[in-house]
C-alpha cells in the first residue's frame, strides 16, 4: 500500500534558520531541505540539503552554461539550479511540456532528482533587454523566435506539467524603457498579487486527498520597483486577509501563507536606477542593456533600503533569494545589511565565459592586508599567463599537491583545496569499455588524482577559441564561490559579531569595481572577432598596426612577403 504522500508530485520544501539573528536584517545562516516522497533514482525517497547562505546555479536555455551533464556531476556545489522557462516557448507546444515521468523538468534537462533542486521562473532574471509592455493578463517573454505573451493560467499549466521543485510566481516587472510612472508601478503590484493567487491555488489532483490541499512550492518576486511605498504596498497585499471569493479559490487566509520564499531580481532595479541617475532611456544603453559591472555604494545602499521596505513586515523565517548580483562585494553587503540567504551565481558564470579564473577567499586569509588591492581573479587571456604553469588560484591548493603533502602538513597555514575539475581533476575508475578485450587494458577500480590544469593551458585554450577553456573556468568559479559561502557561514556561526569586521577586511583587500571584467571582455571579443580562417594573419595585422602606429613606419603588405618567398 503506497502512502498518499507517495503520489504527491510536489516535494516538501522547508527552510530553517540556524543562527538566532539579533534583528530582522542581520546576517544569518539557515538550512534548506527538499524531500521527495515519490520514488526517485531507484530510491524510495530523496532529500536534498543546502546550508545557507549559498549559491543557486543560473542556467541558459536549460543548461548550466559550458557544462555537459558529466561535468555538472563533477560540480557537487550545483545543488540548486534555477531554470527560466521562456526559451522553451520558442516552439508551441514547448517540447519540454511533452516530457513524461515523475520529474519531467529534471528528465528533460538531464538533472538528477536525487541531487538537484530545480526552481523555475517564467523570465530569465539576467536578461535585461527591452521587452514589449506586459498587459493586464499577460507577461511578454523573449524567445529566440520573437516575443510571446503568457497569461498566468498558461504559466500555471506549464508549471503543473513540468513540475519544478520550486516555482517563482509570474510577476509584472516591466522591461519597457524606464522611468516607470507611479501608475505603472501600482499596476505591477496589483497584477503580481493576482498572478500569485493563481499559482497558489491548490492542485486538485483526483489522486490526492483534498485536505490539506496540495500546492506548489512558490517563491514570490518582491515587486514595487524603486519605490519604497510600492514595495510596502505589495508586502501589505501579501499579508492582508483574502476576500471571501478568492479565499475559497486559493484556500489560504492570506497570500503569504502559501509563499515559501521571497525573491529580488537586481537587474531590472539596476537598469531603472541607472536610467534615473543618467536620465537616459533603456534603448540608448544598447541591447542587451545588461550592466555587467557591480554597482557603486550608493546604488547598493538603495538596494538595501528597497529590500528593507519589502521585508519590513514579512515573517523573518522565510528564505530570501537575490538574483543577478555582480560581485562578492554586493553579496556581502546584502548578507550584512539585509540577511539574504541565497544568491544566483550568474556573475561567476559570466566571468567564466569571459576568461576569468576567480581567486578570492572569505574570510581573507591572514597576512594579506598590507598588499595593494587584489583583483578578484585572473584574466587568463592576458599574455602574462602564457608560460604560467601554476594552478588557477593562488588562494587555493590543487588536489594533487594536497594529496602529496599528506597528513604531516601544517594544517593551519595550508590553504583549502579547490575541488573543481580544473584544480583537482581525478581519473575515472570506470572508463567505458568498447570491446571484451578492453577490460584487460583499462585500469579500473581506483580514483586517482590527476595534475591540475595550468593557467598556461587555459590561456592557450582561450586564444585558440577552444570551448574547453570555459568548461574548466565554470567548474572552477563555482567552486570558488561555493568556498566563499562556506566561509561566510562559518564566520556567522562562529561569531556573528565578527562578520562585519571580516566584510571590512574583504573590502580592504579585494577590488570592488571588478575592472578585470572589462579587460577580459575586451580580450574575449578580440579573439572572437579574429577567429576563423586567416585568424593569425588578422591578429598579425592588428599587432603590426599597433607597433607601426607607435614607431610611425609603413606596414608591410602580404604581397611583399609573398614576393620574398616566391623570389
Amino acid at each position: 500500500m503506497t502512502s498518499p504522500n507517495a503520489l504527491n508530485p510536489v516535494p516538501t520544501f522547508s527552510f530553517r534558520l540556524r543562527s538566532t539573528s539579533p534583528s530582522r536584517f542581520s546576517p544569518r545562516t539557515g538550512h534548506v531541505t527538499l524531500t521527495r516522497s515519490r520514488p526517485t533514482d531507484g530510491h524510495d525517497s530523496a532529500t536534498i540539503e543546502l546550508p545557507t547562505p549559498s549559491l543557486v546555479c543560473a542556467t541558459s536555455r536549460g543548461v548550466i552554461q559550458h557544462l555537459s551533464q558529466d561535468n555538472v556531476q563533477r560540480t557537487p556545489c550545483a545543488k540548486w539550479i534555477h531554470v527560466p522557462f521562456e526559451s522553451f516557448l520558442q516552439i508551441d507546444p514547448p517540447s519540454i511540456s511533452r516530457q513524461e515521468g515523475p520529474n519531467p523538468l529534471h528528465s528533460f534537462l538531464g538533472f538528477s532528482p536525487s541531487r538537484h533542486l530545480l526552481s523555475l521562473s517564467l523570465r530569465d532574471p539576467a536578461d535585461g533587454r527591452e521587452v514589449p509592455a506586459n498587459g493586464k493578463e499577460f507577461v511578454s517573454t523573449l524567445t529566440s523566435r520573437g516575443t510571446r505573451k503568457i497569461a498566468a493560467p498558461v504559466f500555471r499549466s506549464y508549471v503543473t506539467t513540468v513540475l519544478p521543485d520550486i516555482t517563482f510566481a509570474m510577476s509584472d516587472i516591466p522591461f519597457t524603457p524606464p522611468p516607470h510612472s507611479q501608475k505603472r508601478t501600482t499596476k505591477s503590484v496589483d497584477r503580481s498579487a493576482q498572478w500569485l493567487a493563481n499559482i497558489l491555488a491548490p492542485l486538485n489532483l483526483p489522486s490526492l486527498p483534498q485536505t490539506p490541499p496540495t500546492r506548489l512550492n512558490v517563491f514570490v518576486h518582491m515587486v514595487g520597483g524603486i519605490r519604497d511605498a510600492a514595495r510596502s504596498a505589495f508586502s501589505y497585499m501579501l499579508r492582508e486577509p483574502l476576500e471571501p471569493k478568492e479565499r475559497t479559490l486559493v484556500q489560504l487566509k492570506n497570500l503569504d501563507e502559501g509563499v515559501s520564499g521571497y525573491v529580488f531580481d537586481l537587474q531590472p532595479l539596476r537598469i531603472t536606477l541607472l536610467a534615473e541617475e543618467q536620465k537616459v532611456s533603456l534603448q540608448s544603453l544598447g541591447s542587451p542593456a545588461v550592466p555587467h559591472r557591480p554597482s557603486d555604494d550608493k546604488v547598493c545602499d538603495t538596494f538595501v533600503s528597497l529590500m528593507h521596505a519589502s521585508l519590513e513586515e514579512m515573517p523573518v523565517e522565510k528564505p530570501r533569494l537575490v538574483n543577478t548580483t555582480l560581485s562578492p562585494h554586493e553579496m556581502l553587503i546584502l548578507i550584512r545589511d539585509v540577511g539574504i540567504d541565497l544568491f544566483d551565481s550568474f556573475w561567476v558564470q559570466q566571468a567564466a565565459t569571459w576568461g576569468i579564473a576567480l581567486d578570492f577567499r572569505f574570510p581573507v586569509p591572514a597576512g594579506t592586508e598590507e598588499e595593494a588591492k587584489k583583483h578578484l581573479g585572473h584574466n587568463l587571456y592576458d599574455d602574462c599567463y602564457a608560460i604560467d604553469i601554476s594552478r588557477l588560484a593562488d588562494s587555493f591548493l590543487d588536489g594533487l599537491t594536497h594529496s602529496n603533502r599528506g597528513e604531516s602538513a601544517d594544517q593551519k597555514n595550508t590553504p583549502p583545496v579547490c575541488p573543481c575539475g580544473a584544480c583537482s581533476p581525478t581519473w575515472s575508475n570506470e572508463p567505458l569499455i568498447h570491446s571484451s578485450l578492453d577490460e584487460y587494458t583499462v585500469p579500473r577500480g581506483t580514483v586517482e588524482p590527476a595534475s591540475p590544469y595550468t593557467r598556461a593551458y587555459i590561456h592557450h585554450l582561450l586564444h585558440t577559441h577552444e570551448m574547453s577553456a570555459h568548461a574548466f573556468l565554470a567548474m572552477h568559479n563555482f567552486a570558488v564561490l561555493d568556498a566563499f559561502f562556506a566561509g561566510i557561514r562559518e564566520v556567522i556561526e562562529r561569531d556573528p559579531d565578527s562578520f562585519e569586521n571580516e566584510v571590512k577586511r574583504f573590502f580592504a583587500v579585494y577590488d570592488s569595481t571588478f575592472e578585470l571584467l572589462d579587460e577580459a571582455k575586451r580580450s574575449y571579443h578580440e579573439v572572437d572577432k579574429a577567429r576563423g580562417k586567416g585568424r593569425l594573419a588578422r591578429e598579425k595585422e592588428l599587432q603590426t598596426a599597433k607597433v607601426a602606429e607607435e614607431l610611425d613606419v609603413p606596414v608591410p603588405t602580404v604581397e611583399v612577403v609573398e614576393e620574398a618567398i616566391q623570389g
Partner: protein
Amino acid sequence: MVMAHGPTLLPTFMPVATQAAIKGLTSQQMEDLGVTLILNNTYHLNLRPGIKILREAGGAHKFQGWRKNLLTDSGGFQLVSLSKFTKITEEGALFASPFTGEPTLLTPEESISIQHAIGADIIMQLDDVVSSLTTGPRVEEAMWRSVRWLDRCIAQHKREGRPEQNLFAIIQGGLDSGLREICLEEMVKRKDSVSGFAIGGLSGGEAKDTFWKMIALCAEKLPDDKPRYSMGIGFAEDLLVCVALGVDMADCVFPTRTARFGVALTRQGPLNLRLNKYSQDLDPIDKDCACPTCRSETSRAFIYHNIGTETATAHAVTQHNIVFQAKLMGDVRDAIMKDEYPAFLKSFFKGYYANGKYPHWIVDSLNSVGVDLLEGLQNTQVVDEDGQNWDYA
C-alpha cells in the same frame, strides 16, 4: 599496440585534438569515454602555444593533462592546406610564418625535433603532400621526395635518441598504383627503422572506387607486423571497409566537427538534429548507447533546442560521436577476435542502409576480400553513390 602511455587496442579510431583539446572536452572526459589514443596537430601546437611553452610544461601530455597515448602529425599537411604561400623545396617546406610573416623553412629534421619536444608516442615523418586530385610529374616528384625525407626523418630521430617515441612512415604516390607500389617498396625496405606505416594522400575528394583500391594496394604490400594507419578516414562505412582491407588505425575530425553542427552518428545513419522533425522527439540519440549523453537520456528535442546556441550541447553530441566511433571499432575488434567480421559487416550495413541501397564501391571492395554483403538479401539495390547517408529532411 603498447606504447609509453599504455596499451591501445587495434583496430582503433583516433579523435583529433587539433589544438591540444578535443573541442569542449577535458582529458578526464576523454579517458572516461574509453579513448586511449588521440591526435594533436604539430602545425597548430608549434604556432600556439609554441614549443617553448610545451617544453616548460614538460611536453604535450602534461600540458593538456592527458595520460594515455598521443600521436602528432608532421605539420606538412596543414602547411599545404592552410598556408597559401607554401613552397616545397628539396630542403623542406618554405612558408610565411603566420606570426611574423617571415619566410620560414620546415625541414624534415625540424619537424622531427618539434615532435620530439611535443613528446607524442607516435610521430609522423614530414612528407611532401600533394592534393589527391593532382596529376602529372608533381605526384612522382612528391613521392620520391617523401622517401628521401623519410630517410632524413629516420636519421634525425636516431640522432636525437627518443626510443619511447615511435616514428611512422607515410606512403605517398597519389592515385597512381605504379607510384604507390614504388613508394611501398622503398619504404618497406626501411621497415626496421620505423614503427608503423601510414597511408597518406587519400581522402581528399577522389572517387571512392579509387580510394578503396589504393588502400587495398597499400595494405596488401605493407608488412604484417607493423600497424597501418589510414590518414583522414572517419565515416563509419570507410572505417569498416578499411579494416576489412587490413587497416589498423584511422583519424578524422569528422565525428567531432559534425557533432558541433548537430549531427549525431548512429548505426542507422547520422541524425541531423537541427532538423525540425526532431523538435518534439523525446527519445535519446540512441537508447542503447553508453555515452554520458544517451545514458542521461538527453532527448533529441533538447539537443534541437540548444545546438548552435549552447556549447554544452555541442559537448554532449561530441561525447556521443566519440563513443559511437569507439564502440564501432570495439565491436569490430570483438567480431575479428571471434572470426565473425564478415557477419558483422553484413549486419552493420543492413542497418546502415536500411533502404536497401548499397553503394557499389562498398560492395566491390568487400567482395575483393571475400565478403558478399548482398548474400541472402532481397530487395537490395547497388547504387553509384558515396554512401554517406546524410539526414537531409
